[in-house]
């Protein structure tokens, strides 16, 4: 490689490395803001702001969903195993909403154990399989069947 090219290569590589480091630091510093939602653990720890529009995310606790018979009111417990609080929502839930499912809710935190949601979104994990396989896994008591309902 001749000297001119070598110089250009060094220049370009150092620009790129510098930019990559800058981006990395920025990304790291803004990590909390880049996160789409607060986890129940963070909410319990008081890291989430009260009375501000924000998102929370976690799993719908098994057996915690209470639907009002007359209205669209629904209430459930959001958990991540390290913390939990009640979410209240009025409206139509997405099809994938079910107990044990990962969800993201947009709304305001009234207190550290009560969240008023304006919008509930369902997450889904990276597992794809036919229903028959899921049935078979469940019947066999395979640990993989449980994984179905556990969003990370």
């Amino acid at each position, binding site marked *: 490689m001749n000297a001119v*090219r070598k110089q*250009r*290569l060094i220049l*370009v590589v150092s620009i*790129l490395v510098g*930019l*990559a480091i800058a*981006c990395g630091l920025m*990304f790291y510093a803004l*990590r909390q803001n*880049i*996160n*789409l*939602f607060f*986890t129940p653990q963070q909410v319990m720890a008081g890291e989430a702001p009260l009375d501000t529009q924000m998102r929370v*995310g976690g799993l719908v606790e098994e057996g915690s969903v209470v639907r009002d018979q007359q209205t669209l009111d629904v209430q459930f417990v959001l958990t991540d195993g390290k913390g939990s609080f009640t979410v209240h929502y009025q409206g139509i*839930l*997405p*099809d*994938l909403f079910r107990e044990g499912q990962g969800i*993201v809710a947009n709304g305001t935190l009234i207190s550290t154990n009560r969240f008023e949601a304006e*919008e*509930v*979104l*369902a*997450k*889904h*994990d*990276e*597992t*794809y*399989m*036919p*229903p*028959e*396989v*899921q049935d078979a896994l469940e019947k066999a008591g395979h640990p993989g069947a449980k994984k*179905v309902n556990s969003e*990370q």
Partner: protein
Amino acid sequence: MVWQTLKRWYHMLGSPRYFYTFSSRVLPWLTPIAVLTLAAGLVWGLAFAPSDYQQGNSYRIIFIHVPASSGALMGYMALGVSGLVAVVWRMKMAEVMLKAIAPFGAGLAAISLVTGALWGKPTWGTYWQWDARMTSMLILLFMYVGVIALQAVIRDPRQAARAAGLLAMVGVINVVIVKYSVEWVQTLHQGSTLKMFGESTIDPAMKYPLLLSMLGLWLLYAVNVLLRARTEVMWRERRSKWVNKLVKEGDR
């Protein structure tokens, strides 16, 4: 040994004329293979693969969404490499490639965003959220558009290639962010289903049509790049003897 072969290839493909004859030989069989592979993958995935236990049939858009997204990301990596070679070594074919790779990739990035939105509505309940994966993918589309626009706006093709090459290289940082956004921060978007190392969390009956569609689309991308590069080579070498001879002979 391998290094020597690679070096020879680099020099051979670095010659516009050699590239032209080489691509003339490759295209006649690469094109049908690409089209057939993509068609087989899509038909298999969209019509014959089993439905999903949670999402039913709506998951089938994966057979378009994932190939398009992966194509857009790989295309940008190739754009970055071309940019590096164009800026440091001033190789003419790298400049040609910089121009040839961008349009199809931009199209794929747009397809990825649109199919993602259409998939998001029935599954998540929303078309769009400003989460890290979606936002960085949108930036990828802007990067592609930027590279194309920069080349269009600078009159001198060699200067245009250097500017666009630099932008292409810088944009590679964003490709890394797109790839790892779902692991580094909390997103609405799911994590990776297909894993380079370790077991993929997708049933084989769905995985194989997906892999086939991906391969098909990548090959189609390659075909598109070759065709665009040939046109660009012809234009840049329009004053050379060999191009004039080809034109006289009526070879397209």
